[in-house]
């Protein structure tokens, strides 16, 4: 958590010094959520996030140097400068990205959970018990893909956890102004 906070503060500093460009989304104040979840995962479990993905990547074990290098356009970084802040991928650490579009990572994570079940039941890898987590914000709960994947994950019983990080903001809209309602659902936020 401390590493996450220090990392994000450094990103902010680099951004204001004009060393870092484009889109950068910081995770200050939310560190506890993903750090807590990811600490409980095994190496083979996977995660998918939104564009606010630096600290999840750190928690997954991707070296801070590799991530910061990516943000500073270095070829020696985790994605050779080809992904950027919003698209941190690591096959080794089972970090499935890093997606720009709200809600995009949820079906991807659901697909990874599908594969876990497929490997166990169809490919007969009996020891496969991988779990997938998708991290996203409260604003994403307005998106159709969230509901589509809730439906499919329940229908086909995937080993999948939807983690809603309620930071009270949807892009630039404060939650209390926004009208949304999830009636009839259990929602843990």
């Amino acid at each position, binding site marked *: 958590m401390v590493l996450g906070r220090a990392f994000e503060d450094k990103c902010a500093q680099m951004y204001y010094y004009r060393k870092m460009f484009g889109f950068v989304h910081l995770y200050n104040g939310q560190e506890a959520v993903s750090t807590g979840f990811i600490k409980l995962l095994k190496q083979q479990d*996977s995660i*998918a996030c939104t564009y606010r993905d630096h600290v999840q990547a750190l928690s997954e074990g991707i070296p801070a140097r590799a991530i910061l290098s990516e943000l500073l356009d270095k070829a020696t970084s*985790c*994605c*050779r400068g*080809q*992904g*950027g802040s919003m*698209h941190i*991928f*690591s*096959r*080794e650490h089972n970090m*499935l*990205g*890093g*997606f*720009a*579009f709200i809600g*995009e990572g*949820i*079906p*991807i*994570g*659901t*697909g*990874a*959970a*599908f*594969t876990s079940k*497929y*490997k166990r*039941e*169809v*490919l007969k890898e009996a020891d496969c018990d991988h779990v997938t987590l998708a991290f996203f914000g409260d604003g994403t709960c307005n998106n*159709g*893909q969230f509901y*589509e*994947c809730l*439906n*499919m994950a329940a*229908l*086909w019983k995937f080993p999948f956890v939807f983690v809603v990080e309620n930071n009270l903001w949807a892009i630039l809209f404060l939650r209390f102004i926004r009208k949304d309602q999830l009636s009839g659902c259990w929602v843990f936020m």
Partner: protein
Amino acid sequence: MLGIVRQKMLEQSLKKIPPAVSVLRSYSSAAKQMTIRDALNSALDEEMSADSKVFLMGEEVGEYQGAYKITKGLLDKYGPERVLDTPITEAGFTGVAVGAAYYGVKPVVEFMTFNFSMQAIDHIINSAAKTNYMSSGQISVPIVFRGPNGAAAGVGAQHSQCYAAWYASCPGLKVLAPYSSEDARGLLKAAIRDPDPVVFLENELLYGESFPVSDEVLDSSFCLPIGKAKIERKGKDVTIAAYSKMVGYALKAAETLEKDGIDAEVINLRSMRPLDRSMINASVRKTSRLVTVEEAFPQHGVGAEICASIVEESFAYLDAPVERIAGADVPMPYAANLERMAVPQVEDIVRAAKRTCYRSVS
């Protein structure tokens, strides 16, 4: 100056191209007939049998045996874990399939028509096509998106669009469009075996058409290379390049043109991305005239890209401007007479070919 250098480089690469005529001709025995539907079904069956990582996903692919019966019998053979009937959630299930492909299983996603792929296009482009690049090669996405594309009959504007140009413009995707049963079998097998995302554009009106297939095509190991076009008819006066259903129209136009003494060469593109620029340029350098044919909207289309390729590589060889035949620049009308006017007909291809030969078109 740069043009000359580029042309010389293309000539070097053209010298290395194997004979344009399909080598399958030499293996061809007596013609068995096979419909496109059976060709696709058998290709799916064989690939699922050979590799247990291949699975199908889509609306009505299981219990209903496929909206167009392409997946007939596969649910009974492989079970519901490998033939998944999805809810009506293109964005959701396409994303699920892409996420599964990140982990090395091989989904074949069916869109009831590619018009519905627009609901899922974010996942096709952003999660599938771009991921190998964004992850600098760490994650590959061995997924196939297949389904009928383009105009059908009387289905109206929202069910009739051709998506070849849209998908073929995106780096990271491969885009295929079969014409014959040989194409359907060979290209679908190649698509399923390919480690990259492939968009496989079928044609609803061709599903029931039969084509002759040789024993080699029927073999379960048969596969066609991605990125290679096929010369369906050799000629010397004008090149007609087309894909999917328009290949059949081009062949009929070639028969009509032959009676007028024009010997047309018909190229079946097969692959929109990668586009077989070498073969098209080699053909145009031989004939000096080109007609491109597509059912899709004209602006920014496949024909426009081919025309640009010819201008860049073979401009000095042209004896006439390139003729581009495409669908009308309107949303597809519903009425049958208007629909007929909105898609290319054989007469349009004949007229265009005659124009390139500076013949009277009356």
